[in-house]
């Protein structure tokens, strides 16, 4: 405030003034650090603006994990769980397989076939030697990873891989798996040619 404008005011009536000292950098830094920590908290607790996620759940995945399921949804959830334990290590949780180790399941002709005879043989007996998937030769050995699974668990896994990652094949029920298992006599791993000779 200039001195001129104060000319008619006595000192006791003078209007207050403010100094022009600047704000130090530390408080801006502290603000930014707090904003960062705050957004991390928000990221962990907000469910990202989902209208379905209420406290104490923190995100959509957690919410779904705790929801009781029935029918097809329950089978799919069980299938996903078993798949990630038993199959996912080699075939990948995204179903794309791993080069030199395991062929992809996404859009594989064995997985999406109409029938499940060939498909069910693979986990029950394992595979050895060459096998052609999506026009590409794979030469590897797979153990009988599914031999120890119950009919319903195996049906769930097959359903999961037949309906995930862009696959749209029909679901599999435990009776169908049981029927295929009943036809198996030997325990020797299959090779590609043997599989192709079977009906779908």
């Amino acid at each position, binding site marked *: *405030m200039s001195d001129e*404008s104060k*000319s*008619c*005011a*006595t000192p006791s*009536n*003078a*209007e*207050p*003034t*403010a*100094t*022009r*000292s*600047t*704000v130090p950098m530390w*408080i801006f830094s*502290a*603000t930014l650090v*707090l*904003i960062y*920590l*705050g*957004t991390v*908290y*928000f990221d962990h*607790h*907000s*469910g*990202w*603006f*989902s*209208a*379905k*996620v*209420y*406290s104490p*759940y*923190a995100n959509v995945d957690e919410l779904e994990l705790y929801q009781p399921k029935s029918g097809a949804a329950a089978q799919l959830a069980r299938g996903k769980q078993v798949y990630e334990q038993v199959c996912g290590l080699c075939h990948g949780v995204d179903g794309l397989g791993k080069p030199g180790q395991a062929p992809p399941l996404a859009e594989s002709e064995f997985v999406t076939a109409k029938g499940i005879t060939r498909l069910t043989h693979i986990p029950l007996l394992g595979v050895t030697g060459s096998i052609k998937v999506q026009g590409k030769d794979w030469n590897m050995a797979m153990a009988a990873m599914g031999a120890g699974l119950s009919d319903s668990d195996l049906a769930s896994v097959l359903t999961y891989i037949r309906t995930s990652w862009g696959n749209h094949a029909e679901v599999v029920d435990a009776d169908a798996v049981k029927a295929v298992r009943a036809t198996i006599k030997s325990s020797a791993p299959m090779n590609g040619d043997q599989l192709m000779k079977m009906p779908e």
Partner: protein
Amino acid sequence: MNVNEKSNGDCVSPSQIDASCRVPSLALFGGAALWLVVGLALALIASIKFHQPAFLADCSLLTYGHVQAAANDLILYGFAIPAALGVLLWIFARLSQAELVLPLVPVVAAHIWHVGVLLGTIGILTGNSTGFAWLEYPRLVFPLLLVAFILIAISAVATFGQRKERELYPSHWFLLAALLWFPWIYSTANIFLVVWPVRGVGQAVINWWFVNNLLFVWLALVGLGVAFYFLPKLGGKPLHSRFWAQFAFWTLTLFGTFLGIPQGAPVPAWYPAASALASSLLIIPLIAIAIIFVKTVCGANVSCKGGPFCYIKFGTVAFLLSGLMTIAVSCPHFSQITRFTWFETAQTQLQLFGFFAIVILGGAYEILPRVMGSPLPFPKFIRFQHWCFMLGTLLLVGSLAVSGIQQGLHDYSFDLALPALRISTLGLFFLLLGSLMFAANIFVMTIKWNLALGKTVLAAVIAPLKTAEVKS
């Protein structure tokens, strides 16, 4: 006031500016003082009912639900807002170094406002409350209060437009923002809750948003605007500094608006998460305000002696405490203890009485002798009232806060809460005593002024006409 001060040229003398605020100040402060006394008396009745349930229980007008809501709204709408507007008008006129523009508009508006509060209070006591916290006044009152506020804001902004200095003083930002803030939040909340109610849990969200924006942000904007004016003025040291104040203003308005959704509210998780995020950031404006306060007040060459400077110092410290309590309540871990306890009430009372009422009353005591051009009738009451308010706030807020934490930590037992409730009643009694002193000062002043006015009019009426005038 110095009688020798006369206008020379463009310069308007401070005493002329003060005189232009006289009638609006009396209208706003007078009603506010009355409502503060009535509101605190009702709050006292409500508080006594906690340990004497039979007290006034047979009168349907004075049941707890009616009395508590009426007391809250009287203290907020009856006292806090009009008194704040009275201080704001004077500060705007002084900072503009111009007389108040349209001085009659705030007078009319003050009467509309006080009639609105009277109707609202009758509505609540007769059981016609809307049922929304801090928004209990029936639908009819909403347009009255909104129009009255806007009228006063028009006069304030017109005075602001007359300012001689182009550069704004920090108080300008806070007070101008408050003038825009209230019509926005009050109309939004009323339209969506009272006039055309939204459905479901949206009501609770709007109510939380409104209560936080009014009780925390609006009160903070006005109270700090007033404090940033009077602290340097009375302390005789410049405010430290305009950039710090700017920083505090933007961070407070930015982070403050998101608060208010309690943890565990039955709404999607991102609402309380956003509130918790904003509340942790609230520490930044609090640090800034604390630095402004300490650097402005330390070394100020004024002995306080319970005068207005003391009021505003106490109020600013109370605001910092109330801000810390707000942060604590929004913090997920701490809120598990304090949710639904007396602690939340304690925070609100600290904000209302410890911070806002004391700052505004300090401002009013500083303004009143200036606008009336005569000393207060009971100048000693200023000091007594300061002690009453300090003691009252301490007893009320301290007892409720401690009791709230006890409630959260232990199983709730009535024996545990009873002593704290008794102490809080005592605190309210001291607040009521203090408010009576303010009311006594302002009413005696108003009566004296009216008598003097009447004498002047009477003298003019009965004065003998000069013969020369009769002849011509």
